[in-house]
């Protein structure tokens, strides 16, 4: 049996009507819109939060230096997050499809490993700065309270920060890592198919 000719003939039986180029360009626009939506939403949300914090600073005129440092810490946390998030979005889009499969896979692997590192590190720094900012900002106002209320206020806030740090943060990291690790593993498996004979 001449398998070569048989397979090629069978292979060529597959046909799909050429879609109109109009459909293609519509898809391009849709694709672009979708990929920017999330990015714009993240930017707008954080910019509004920043504006709100600045308004609080302006309106309540904190006197203590701790309050001011606290606000700066919170703002810094948000800008850092936004900066890295934007950079990563650009970085993930910079995918070069024109290289050969072997190099493309290596590029994807590097990209995913970098994403994994960035997500974990930045999330930690973001949490630390935000918690520190809140803690410092509160000091001025708790000073005006009675001792018991001050302890209650700090207690509740610290409980909330601890809950975020020990429960929500590891959960988010674990979830992100699981998805990325699974992908990295799959890419490595395919990479091995190329390396092995």
């Amino acid at each position, binding site marked *: 049996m001449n398998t070569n000719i048989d*397979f*090629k003939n*069978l292979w060529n039986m*597959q046909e*799909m009507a*050429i879609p109109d180029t109009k459909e293609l360009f519509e898809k391009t626009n849709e694709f672009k819109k979708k990929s920017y939506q999330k990015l714009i939403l993240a930017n707008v949300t954080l910019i509004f939060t920043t504006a709100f914090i600045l308004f609080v600073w302006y309106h309540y005129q904190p006197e203590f230096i701790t309050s001011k440092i606290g606000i700066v810490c919170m703002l810094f946390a948000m800008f850092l997050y936004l900066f890295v998030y934007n950079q990563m979005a650009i970085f993930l889009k910079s995918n070069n499809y*024109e290289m*050969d499969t*072997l190099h493309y*896979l290596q590029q994807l692997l590097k990209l995913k490993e970098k994403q994994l590192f960035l997500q974990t590190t930045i999330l930690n720094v973001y949490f630390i700065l935000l918690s520190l900012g809140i803690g410092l900002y509160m000091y001025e106002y708790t000073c005006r309270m009675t001792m018991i209320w001050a302890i209650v206020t700090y207690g509740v806030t610290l409980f909330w920060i601890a809950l975020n740090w020990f429960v929500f943060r590891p959960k988010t990291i674990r979830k992100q890592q699981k998805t990325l690790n699974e992908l990295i593993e799959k890419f490595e498996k395919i990479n091995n198919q190329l390396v092995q004979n």
Partner: protein
Amino acid sequence: MDFESIYKTYWQKIFRLCMGYVNDNDWAKDIAQETFITVWQKLPEFRNESSVGTWIFRIASNHCLRQIERHKRMPKSNLPVEIEEVKSVNNEPKFNFLYKCIAELPEIDRLIISLELEDIKQAEIASIVGISEANVRVKIFRIKEKLTKKFEKYEY
């Protein structure tokens, strides 16, 4: 070469490559369209360092590999069986069986055999996939052996 003529010349070839990779009409059409979007975006920068064919097949192969990330979003196994059957364009069983067999191979093998069946020279396949020509030859031989065995079982 302008985009329109590239699109017309390569659409069927790229669609078949994607079909060999996923064996699902709608999904393959999506990947083929994504490939041509990249071709359209990158064409002004294309410097003829490789042939247009090699360049397009590289882009298509990489788009196919990228599907791993999307696999979770549309798991094929979750589709009702009836829908999958209705989706087949052609009722030729042998032809469907070939695409089914290819889509079951390891990812790189799917790409290599699809390119081979598309009549791409082995040197060119080597440059698309990034392995040596000798390696491509060995792989093609093994894949064809595997496919032949499956077809023998299918026929008898």
